[in-house]
């Protein structure tokens, strides 16, 4: 489980909670629009060593079947994964 995007994106005034409690992990917007460069993983070169997964500040990388997979909805394109990768398997491309 991780905080995830909900369908409903607008709140009426009545729906806004009066007290300061609300559901944890309730997301309504993506962060993908922040990117100017996008990490692309070379699945051939990736050895699934988990370094990018460990160092991603946004936690968007998961290791599935021993390969890194990126959740592009929330990747901000900082490029830390590309620098940390011991196999240089992550290329930053100028594209959203």
């Amino acid at each position, binding site marked *: 489980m991780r*905080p995830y*995007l909900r369908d409903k994106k607008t709140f009426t005034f009545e729906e806004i909670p009066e007290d300061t409690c609300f559901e*944890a992990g309730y*997301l309504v917007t993506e962060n993908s629009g*922040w990117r100017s460069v996008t990490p692309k993983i070379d699945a051939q070169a990736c050895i699934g060593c988990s370094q990018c997964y*460990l160092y*991603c*500040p946004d936690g968007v990388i998961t290791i599935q079947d021993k390969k890194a997979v990126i959740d592009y909805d929330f990747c901000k394109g900082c490029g*830390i994964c590309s*620098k940390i990768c011991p196999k240089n398997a992550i290329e930053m491309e100028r594209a959203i």
Partner: protein
Amino acid sequence: MRADQLDKNEYFYGHKACAGCGGSLAVRAALKVLGERSIAVLPAGCMSAVGFNFPQLCFGNNAIISMFAGTASMLTGVEAGMRRRGYKDFHAVGLAGDGGTADIGIQALSGAIDRGDDILYICYDNEAYMNTGIQKSGLTPYGARTTTTPAGRNIRGNIRPKKNMFEIVAAHDIPYAATATVGYINDFIDKVEKASKIRGTKFIHVIAPCPTGWGIPVSDTIEVAREMADCGLWYLAEYENGKFTLDRDPGEFKSAEAHLRRQGRFKHLTDEDIDLIIKSRDEKWEKIRREWK
């Protein structure tokens, strides 16, 4: 702790921190270790500003914003309340910035250590009040340019050294205190895990570079954090059972000058200023190597 032993869930996700934020990595890693049964208390600061933008609520566990000065006192209350209601096996964890720890929240922290409350206090140190636009805090290092310590012809940035928060906390004779850096995340994760198993007050001081405030490219956060430990401007140590131990001796230091010069906040420093920083580093390390073996 190996990467595959970590909790696969993410508890700090979709937040609005700047790209390459070191602080958000520290919070994310700490919560992955502590898990769902942890109650996070965050004072005013970057991580509360980027995590709770209603209705974008980025914490997957219970999290609450405290008063700026009251991180540790709210942790005391959270821990006591949970215990009173019969909950077991939970963690009350505070995630405060350097200003909220070393300046504004220091008396609450000191009080909590004094009472011996069973809490974990993590200070993510980005070396200034970054949330409000880079003002000097007690943990801003000597020479750093901030908006309140600008670099001019006569005074070049911050004229005061970094407050020694780790040793201030250790002087309380706390059960466990440690320093860490996001540059060596496995070391940080191990320390959070170790702290989570100790009863009593625990404190971890983790260096978390801020690309915006430090004037570094967003992709260099980890590299700069590592370099800071490798060139001796930060140290990885622990305090336990009344004893200091140095976890990692870099031996021959990497160039501190190159490390400082690559950061925008130190661009204005003269060679003499850098010599002064290196001299104080060498004095500090002489003491560390002599006493903390």
